[in-house]
C-alpha cells in the first residue's frame, strides 16, 4: 500500500526510482533504475558462450591493464542509480575487488584479483545493460592528470594562505603599527612570501624560461619579472627600513592567476572530451567459418567470417554470400540501402542489413580504406590545434608595449632626474600594469562559456571554438542524418486509410527485416499487432518481401500470397515507394521520405539572416540533394552532391572560415578540414573524434545556442579587454607620474580584478528569456 501512495506523488515525467526527468513518460530513466527497483538477483557464471573470452588472453589483457586496474568508458550513464548498479559488480563476481565509477568522465575502474577474468566483468557490464569500451593503457590520461591536478591544488592553497595572511600583516602596517610589533610584522611579510615565491610560482618560472628559450612573448614572462622585481624591491626596502612593500599585492595577483588557470584547466579536462575513444569496431565480435569468435582486430587477410544483421563490416573484403543488403550511408552518405551480389567488394564501415552474410577479408582493420581515412583525419587535427588565440596575441602586444615604455622611461627619467626614483616608478608600472585582465579575464570567460555550453547540450572538444566561431562565414551541412532525420518516415499511403488487418499483415511480412522501410512502418504503426499467421516469408534482395497466409477451409486450404515490392523511380516528393500486392493485385501503395528535421529550414533561414552562407554537401544522388537543399532554402549553386569523402574535404578547403556539420564516417575528413567541425547526436565515434564540437541533444537546435554563447563570449572578452585597457592606461600613467605607491597598488589591483570578474559573470546571463 505504501508503495502505491508513493506512486501518486511522482508524476509521470519522473523516473520511478531515482526521480530524474524521463522522456516519453517512461517509468524508469534507465535500466539500472528498473533493475534496482525490482530486487534483482543474478549471479551467473558466464563460462559458456561468453563472447568476451578473448579478453583473457594475455596479449589482450596486457594492453589494457594499468597497475592491476582496468578502465572502461561507459557510454550510457544516466543517473546515480547507474553508479550504484555498476559499483555492485563485486557482489556479482567475487574475483572483482573494486569497481569505481567516475560519473563526470564516464569512467569505470575495475580491479581484479589474481584469478579474476576480464571477460567475466565485460560480460557482466553488458548484462547490466551498458555499452562499455575498454580503454587502452596508452589512451588513459586521467591517472597522471589527477596527480598533476593535486599538485596544482596544493600550490594554490599555499598561495591563498600566503596572500590572505600577508594582507592582514600589510593592513596592520598601513594602519600604523609601531614598536616591536611593526618590526615583527615587517619581517613576517618576507617570511610568508617565501613559500609563494619558491613553491606556488614554480609553473610561471617554467613558462617564462620557455618563453626565453623559444623566443616567444608569453604572458608568464612579465608575471615572473613583476614577481621577482617586486620581491627584490620590497626586500631591499625592508632591509633599508622603509615600509614600501609589494608583497601583499603580488601575492594576491599570483593567487588569482593560479586560481583562474586551474579553473580553466579543470573545465577543459572535464568538459572537453574525456578520453579518446577508439573505434567502436574494436570491440565488435565476429565468427570465423569454423565458429571461433574473433574481434575485428584479429581478422587476417583471407579469413572468411560472418557478419550478423545490423552489424558493421570491420575490414575491406569480398562478399562470399550470394546477396546482401547493405547500408553504405556511414561510408558515402547514400541514403538508400544497396544490394550487393557475390564477389563484389565491400568496405569497412558498411553495415549489413540482411541476414548474416559471409565476407572474405582483403585487408586487416588497420589496412582498411576507412582506417586510411582516419589516419588522414588525425593528421589534420594536429595541424588544426596550432592556433594562436586573440587574447594571447593581445597579451603579447601589451607586454611588449609596457616593457618598451618602462625601458624608455627608466633611461630618460633616470638621465634627467634620478635613477632611484625612476626605478620606483617603472616598478610600479610593471606591477600595476600586469596583464591581469588578460591572464585572468579571458580564461575565466572561456571557462564560463564552456560550462554554459555543456548545460545547453554542447560538448566542446577544442578550446578555441568560441574565438573561431566569430569568424565563420561559410557553413556546410551534410544531408543524410544532419539536415534530415536519417531514417525513412511513412508520409503518404494509397488508399489514405489502410485497414488494420492489412497493416498487421504488412508488419508481419517485414517482421524480420532490417530494411529502412521496415523500421519506418514499425514506427508509423506502433499500435498495430503484428500478424502471426504469415508463413514462407522470403526477402528478395532489393525488390521486396513475399509471404503467404494459409486459410484452412473445409475443401482445400486457401492460400493468399502477399508481396511488397519497391516501385520504380518515384513521382512524388518521396525517396522511396513500395506497392503491396495481394495475389498479384495492388492493394496499397506506401510512400516514404527521409524527412527534414523540423528545425532545419528555420535554422538555415536564421543563419542566412546573419549573412552566413549555407552549403549542402552530400554523397547522395543529385535529385534528392536538390530537393532537400532547396526545401531548406539553400541556394542551388551551393548544393554539392554525389561526393566522396575526399571531395567533401576538397570543397571545404577552397573556402575560408568554414564550419561543417555532419554525422557520418564520410564527413569525418571534411569535419577535420573545416575550421570548426560539429558532429550531431548519434554520430559515429570516428566522426566525433574528428570534430571540435559535439551536440549532446538531438537535432540542430544547439547550433543556434552555440552561436549565441559564442557572441556572448565575444562581447564579454571585448568588454574585459576594454576595461583592462582603460585600467592599464590610467594606472600606468599614474605610476609613471609617481602617484602610485604600494598602498595604491594594493587597492587598485584587486579592484580591477573584481571588475573583470563581475564583467565576465554578467556577460553570460540571458537577459531576455527566449
Amino acid at each position, binding site marked *: 500500500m505504501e508503495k502505491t501512495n508513493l506512486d501518486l506523488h511522482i508524476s509521470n515525467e519522473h523516473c520511478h526510482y531515482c526521480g530524474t526527468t524521463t522522456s516519453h513518460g517512461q517509468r524508469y530513466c534507465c535500466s539500472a533504475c528498473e533493475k534496482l527497483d525490482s530486487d534483482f538477483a543474478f549471479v551467473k557464471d558466464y563460462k559458456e558462450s561468453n563472447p568476451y573470452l578473448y579478453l583473457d588472453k594475455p596479449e589482450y589483457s596486457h594492453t589494457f591493464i594499468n597497475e592491476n586496474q582496468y578502465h572502461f568508458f561507459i557510454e550510457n550513464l544516466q543517473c546515480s542509480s547507474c553508479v550504484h548498479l555498476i559499483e555492485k559488480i*563485486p557482489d556479482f563476481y567475487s574475483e572483482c575487488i573494486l569497481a569505481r*565509477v567516475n560519473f*563526470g568522465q564516464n569512467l569505470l575502474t575495475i580491479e581484479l584479483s589474481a584469478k579474476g577474468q576480464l571477460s567475466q566483468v565485460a560480460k557482466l557490464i553488458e548484462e547490466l545493460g551498458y555499452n562499455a569500451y575498454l580503454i587502452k593503457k596508452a589512451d588513459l590520461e586521467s591517472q597522471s592528470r589527477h596527480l598533476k*591536478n593535486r599538485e596544482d591544488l*596544493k600550490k594554490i592553497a*599555499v598561495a591563498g594562505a600566503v596572500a590572505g595572511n600577508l594582507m592582514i600583516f600589510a593592513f596592520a602596517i598601513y594602519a600604523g603599527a609601531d614598536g616591536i610589533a611593526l618590526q615583527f610584522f615587517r619581517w613576517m611579510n618576507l617570511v610568508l612570501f617565501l613559500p609563494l615565491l619558491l613553491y606556488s610560482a614554480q609553473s610561471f618560472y617554467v613558462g617564462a624560461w620557455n618563453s626565453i628559450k623559444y623566443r616567444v612573448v608569453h604572458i608568464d614572462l612579465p608575471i615572473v619579472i613583476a614577481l621577482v622585481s617586486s620581491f627584490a624591491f620590497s626586500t631591499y626596502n625592508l632591509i633599508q627600513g622603509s615600509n614600501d612593500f609589494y608583497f601583499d599585492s603580488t601575492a594576491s595577483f599570483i593567487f588569482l592567476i593560479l586560481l583562474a588557470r586551474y579553473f580553466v584547466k579543470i573545465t577543459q579536462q572535464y568538459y572537453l572530451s574525456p578520453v579518446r575513444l577508439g573505434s567502436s569496431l574494436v570491440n565488435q565480435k565476429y565468427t570465423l567459418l569454423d565458429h571461433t569468435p574473433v574481434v575485428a582486430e584479429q581478422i587476417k587477410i583471407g579469413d572468411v567470417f560472418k557478419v550478423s544483421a545490423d552489424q558493421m563490416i570491420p575490414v575491406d573484403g569480398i562478399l562470399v554470400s550470394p546477396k546482401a543488403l547493405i547500408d553504405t550511408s556511414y561510408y558515402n552518405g547514400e541514403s538508400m540501402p544497396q544490394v550487393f551480389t557475390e564477389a563484389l567488394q565491400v568496405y569497412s564501415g558498411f553495415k549489413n542489413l540482411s541476414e548474416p552474410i559471409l565476407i572474405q577479408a582483403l585487408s586487416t582493420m588497420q589496412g582498411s580504406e576507412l582506417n586510411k581515412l582516419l589516419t588522414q583525419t588525425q593528421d589534420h587535427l594536429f595541424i588544426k590545434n596550432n592556433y594562436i588565440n586573440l587574447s594571447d596575441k593581445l597579451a603579447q602586444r601589451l607586454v611588449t608595449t609596457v616593457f618598451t615604455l618602462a625601458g624608455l622611461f627608466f633611461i630618460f627619467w633616470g638621465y634627467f632626474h634620478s635613477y632611484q626614483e625612476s626605478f620606483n616608478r617603472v616598478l610600479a608600472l610593471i606591477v600595476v600594469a600586469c596583464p591581469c585582465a588578460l591572464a585572468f579575464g579571458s580564461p575565466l570567460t572561456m571557462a564560463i562559456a564552456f560550462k554554459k555550453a555543456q548545460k545547453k547540450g554542447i560538448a566542446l572538444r577544442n578550446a578555441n571554438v568560441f574565438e573561431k566561431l566569430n569568424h565563420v562565414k561559410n557553413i556546410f551541412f551534410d544531408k543524410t542524418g544532419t539536415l534530415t532525420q536519417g531514417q525513412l518516415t511513412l508520409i503518404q499511403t494509397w488508399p489514405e486509410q489502410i485497414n488494420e488487418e492489412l497493416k498487421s499483415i504488412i508488419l508481419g511480412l517485414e517482421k524480420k527485416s532490417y530494411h529502412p522501410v521496415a523500421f519506418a512502418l514499425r514506427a508509423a504503426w506502433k499500435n498495430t499487432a503484428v500478424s502471426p499467421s504469415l508463413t514462407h516469408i522470403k526477402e528478395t534482395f532489393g525488390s521486396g518481401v513475399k509471404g503467404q497466409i494459409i486459410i484452412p477451409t473445409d475443401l482445400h486450404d486457401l492460400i493468399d500470397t502477399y508481396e511488397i515490392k519497391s516501385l520504380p523511380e518515384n513521382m512524388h516528393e518521396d525517396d522511396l515507394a513500395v506497392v503491396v500486392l495481394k495475389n498479384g493485385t495492388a492493394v496499397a501503395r506506401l510512400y516514404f521520405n527521409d524527412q527534414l528535421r523540423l528545425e532545419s529550414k528555420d535554422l538555415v533561414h536564421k543563419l542566412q539572416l546573419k549573412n552566413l552562407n549555407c552549403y549542402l554537401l552530400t554523397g547522395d544522388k543529385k535529385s534528392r540533394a536538390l530537393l532537400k537543399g532547396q526545401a531548406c532554402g539553400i541556394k542551388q549553386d551551393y548544393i554539392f552532391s554525389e561526393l566522396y569523402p575526399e571531395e567533401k574535404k576538397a570543397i571545404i578547403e577552397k573556402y575560408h572560415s568554414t564550419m561543417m556539420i555532419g554525422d557520418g564516417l564520410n564527413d569525418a575528413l571534411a569535419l577535420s578540414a573545416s575550421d570548426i567541425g560539429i558532429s550531431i547526436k548519434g554520430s559515429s565515434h570516428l566522426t566525433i573524434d574528428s570534430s571540435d564540437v559535439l551536440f549532446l541533444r538531438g537535432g540542430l537546435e544547439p547550433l543556434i545556442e552555440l552561436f549565441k554563447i559564442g557572441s556572448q563570449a565575444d562581447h564579454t572578452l571585448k568588454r574585459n579587454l576594454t576595461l583592462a585597457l582603460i585600467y592599464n592606461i590610467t594606472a600606468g600613467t599614474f605610476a609613471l607620474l609617481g602617484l602610485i605607491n604600494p598602498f595604491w597598488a594594493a587597492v587598485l589591483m584587486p579592484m580591477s580584478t573584481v571588475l573583470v570578474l563581475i564583467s565576465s559573470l554578467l556577460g553570460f546571463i540571458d537577459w531576455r528569456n527566449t
Partner: protein
Amino acid sequence: MSVLILVIPMALLLGAGFLYAFFWATSSGQFDDLTTPSMRMLDQDSKKLQNNKENNT
C-alpha cells in the same frame, strides 16, 4: 600589545594546520572527483563490504 606575541604565532599555527589538512585531503584524492561521491553516499554498502565489516568487529 604583548598578547600579540602569543596570538600571532597561534594564528599562524592554526593556518599551517589547516594548510596541512588540505594537503592531506588532496593527497588522498578527495578532490579528484567531485560529482560521483555525492551519488554514492546514499547507496547501501555492497554485501561484500558489509561482510568485511562484520568480520572485523
